[in-house]
């Protein structure tokens, strides 16, 4: 239920099937992008993006700006 790991999409294998190759720290696997399919948006646009991987499916694209913002807020709070 909970083991979700960030991985980066490095290639689209079969756009019709929604399969892609993702990589994290040198480990690669074929994964499924069915949950990320948005109408009229080509899957290729996801190449280079980080996703949260759970049992071989990309659950969400990681919003890098949100991540940086969360960390920045925390670091600011430390200065207070």
């Amino acid at each position, binding site marked *: 239920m909970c083991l979700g790991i960030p991985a980066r999409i490095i290639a689209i294998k079969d756009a019709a099937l929604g399969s892609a190759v993702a990589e994290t720290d*040198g480990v690669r696997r074929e994964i499924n992008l069915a949950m990320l399919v948005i109408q009229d948006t080509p899957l290729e646009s996801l190449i280079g993006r980080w996703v949260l991987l759970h049992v071989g499916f990309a659950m969400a694209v990681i919003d890098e700006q949100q991540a940086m913002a969360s960390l920045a807020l925390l670091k600011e709070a430390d200065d207070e």
Partner: protein
Amino acid sequence: MAEADCITLAHGAGGRASEELIQQVFINAFGQHNSTPLQDCAALDIAELSVPGSRLAFTTDSFVVSPLTFPGGDIGKLAVCGTVNDLAVSGATPMYLSVGFILEEGLPMAELKSIVQSMARTAKQANVAIVTGDTKVVSKGQVDKIFINTSGVGVIPPGIKVQSNLAKKGDVILLNGFIGDHGAAVMLARQELGFEANLASDCAPLNALIAKILQVCPDISVMRDATRGGVGTVLSEIAKASQVTIALDEARLPIRRETQAICELLGMDPLFFANEGLAVFIVAEKHSAVVLAVMQNDEFGQNACQIGLVTDSGEDLFYINNTFGSKRMIELPYGIQLPRIC
């Protein structure tokens, strides 16, 4: 007579086919001990044993790994290194190995030859001789292609006493390389979970490295080969045998990023992954710098480092000091680690 292209039951029957197999495959690769005609056993003249105080070291190990070949090695290389290393970590100079094969009917001869040649190369590298052996062939399906047993003898010189229960408070814990590479590489090579990475088994004979260590530190407390159960199992056993507290430093554990990533993806712990070229060394603090230097100068110790300390004696405890300042207790897993979703 034309060579068969695969193993058949005839090769295990003891007749001409067996003899041809022994000559053309095994003797061809391993050489004939002392150039004597084949006997039922090898007669060994071990001069070193006549030195007062020296002891014979004797060990055995069986190898059933699948797949037979994987990045960094194969079952043959494993079979030699495993036994050589068991002898070496006991303080012995490994000398002679036996090899017992159980072959599955239908095993391609080319595959067997490749494994046997790998064993011969590894034996040469480790400076040991394979002097006797046995072959059985069973019907298809009764073994998974090939199972190998190797037994080995070596001599422990006088004055060397290395045992699991000699760790003392204040001792330093060293490793000669990265944790978990073999277990991770073999798991990937099985291709049951779909992952790929540039990971190779660390399979290697460590006797030369260990000989150098014993030269600078003959009274080393503990040396253990961290094979099947991993570094975690070995340290847990040492803590129990010596009745000491072992504390590791999480930040100092040498784990390749690929091995770490596999473990995170599958919810496993590299501390309990198998290694085949990794030993745990527990040395008195005053010797640790020189031992580390010796290790780092050796082909199989370039990534050697200190991973923790024996912090107390009297009770067996084993934990990791993590980067947050907490102590994570380490407990032996019951069986094999399984990938998890949670």
